[in-house]
């Protein structure tokens, strides 16, 4: 992890059309290059909204954000070249094979030819998907779909990766492979911004976490330091419950 701020968020506010209550209420934070940064929070806390604004899916109502020094509003096209996005839902074409999907998405990042083939082959090898290359997505299991979904966002070696709950609904084996790979990428210098509901997973993986609730950052820091600061709670999950409460969320 370096001292260089790669993502700078200042007073970010988002109010959806037709809604009076802001989804995020003035979030400010810095994420350093080479971090694995976890955005944690209950349902509706504002995690996905924050990530969606950073990767250009939504426009912020107020505030600013910069990625690698570029403003997300005025330099969106340049930003799109250096970020990788792994959406929460599997965003692949079901009637195309795994290889065809990855070729298409690779092409959209500007990759082609032998280098793209090599990238896809490497990605498939890392996730043990070689024998599924020619299988249509519709015929793949949930775990395989998730892994291909992940590869599609990483083909172009992005500087920053946004992962929105990448391990939801998959078996332990797939989860371990995904998390190991994210660590490996991070060691190569890639910044990983990741949302999750799994506190234990975040505690193990993240260099820092921000706990968000009702559109605000309520706590931020290294997960181990957070646990140390609150000795009355034995782990991050208990701190999270303490901070966000036990009420059920929509």
């Amino acid at each position, binding site marked *: 992890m370096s001292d260089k701020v790669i993502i700078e968020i200042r007073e970010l506010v988002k109010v*959806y*059309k037709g809604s009076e209550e802001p989804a995020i209420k003035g979030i400010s934070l810095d994420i350093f290059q080479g971090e694995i940064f976890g955005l944690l929070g209950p349902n509706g806390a504002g995690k996905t909204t924050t990530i*969606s604004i950073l*990767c*250009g*899916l*939504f*426009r912020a109502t107020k505030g600013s954000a910069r990625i690698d020094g570029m403003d997300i509003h005025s330099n969106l*096209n340049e930003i*799109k*070249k250096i*970020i990788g*996005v792994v*959406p929460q*839902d*599997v*965003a*692949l*074409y*079901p*009637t*195309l094979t795994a290889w*065809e999907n990855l*070729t*298409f*998405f690779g*092409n*959209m*990042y*500007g990759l*082609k030819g032998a280098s793209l083939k090599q990238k896809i082959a490497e990605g498939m090898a890392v996730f043990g998907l070689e024998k599924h290359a020619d299988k*249509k997505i519709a015929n793949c299991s949930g775990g395989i779909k998730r892994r291909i979904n992940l590869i*599609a*966002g990483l083909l172009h070696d992005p500087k920053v990766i946004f992962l929105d709950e990448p391990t939801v609904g998959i078996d332990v084996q797939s989860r371990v492979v995904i998390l190991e790979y994210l660590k490996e990428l991070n060691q190569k210098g890639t910044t990983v911004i990741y949302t999750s509901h799994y506190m234990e997973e975040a505690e193990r993986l993240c260099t820092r976490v921000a706990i968000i609730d009702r559109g605000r950052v309520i706590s931020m820091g290294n997960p181990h330091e957070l646990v140390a600061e609150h000795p009355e709670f034995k782990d991050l999950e208990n701190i999270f419950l303490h901070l966000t409460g036990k009420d059920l969320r929509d």
Partner: protein
Amino acid sequence: MFKFFSACRKESLILIRDMAGLIILFVMPMIMVVILALVQEQGWSSLTKDPSIPVLLVDEDHDTLGAKIQEGLRSSNIFKVYTSLDGINLTREVAKEEIAKGAYNIAVIIPKGSTKIIRHKVQVMVTQIVSGIMMPVDNPFLDIQSNDSINIAVYFDPGIKGTFKYAFMASMKEYSMFIESSMIFDSFNSELKKMFPQYQPPKSDYRETVYFSEIFPAGKDENAVPSTTQHNVPAWALFAMFFIVIPMTGSMIKEREEGSMVRIYTMPVSYLTIFMAKVSVYTMVCIIQFILMVLAGRFVLPLAKIPPLTIGSNYFGILLMMIASSLAALGFAIAVGTIARTHQQAAAFGVVSVVVFTALGGLWVPVYLMPEVMRTIATWSPLNWAHVGFIDLFLRQATLVDILPPLAKLLAFFVVMISIALFYRRINSPLNS
């Protein structure tokens, strides 16, 4: 540019993988064109080739008028004349009953003494004329009056169309006029013979003098009569082409629902590239659809003894017209696919609006038969522009300059539809949500 080709490849693969969709896209329109052309062509050609419309004829006259009307109906090659049913001669009551219960569509009753009345009337008229020549002053025959008239009753099934009734009554009037003319001719001969015993009447019967022939000055061969295939095939082909709204909107909405569009929004590729790739692939689909339907018109319909479709010789013009029509259809589909939120909305609105465009465009009922207001509205239907363009190319040997107006209108329609889609997307973009 390779992003565009990659997106085209992706669209093509998605299309090819969907076999049921391909059958619907290519085979169903062909089947539709063949069936509808068969139904319409055979419906009208039966009027000239195969006498199949049954007519009940009750001849109470048993004289020349009854015989001539029967002969006229039979020789028209349109009607099959029945004077008896199950071996029993028809009566007025039976004929009326058969029509009332819907077993037959038309019955003609020629009343008793009809020929006698005509003959008497003609004789009075001829006598007056001839005696006028012999006795120009104080002609005693001038006061003779014959105001008798004949009422030939025609019963129609209530379901028969007005235009057909009109055509049938016109034919009946034509037969009776011809019979009256023949009788006048015969009576004159007979009176002249009385006046001049040495007069030898001509051996030939009275013949019509005025004939009508169909001439089509826009075609290469003026005597080549265009069949209804020439109207039907391009009409139904365009109708099917505009139904691209269903698969196209389906593809757009599916892409949104599956989330792949969300991923694309986060990639360094413009929406226009993805969008134009879709338009390009579906333009090819529309062109292939149209070519298949034209081939069906040329090679499949003749198997059913229907004249083949002729397409003229301006192949480049036809290609341009196919591209412009496809773009118009796709522009409409993209606008619907962008605005509709669900498959149901897109399908219901798409189908109904294509049917409305088709009806307004004169593809079912010719524009010249429409009321004036509708005729004006018809000129705003893209299907009308396309149909006019193809008819000009197929039948009128139109040049590129001739088809410029419909081409320009179709391309303008495409641009307007795309602009609507882009504007709607801009104001409803997730970025602005």
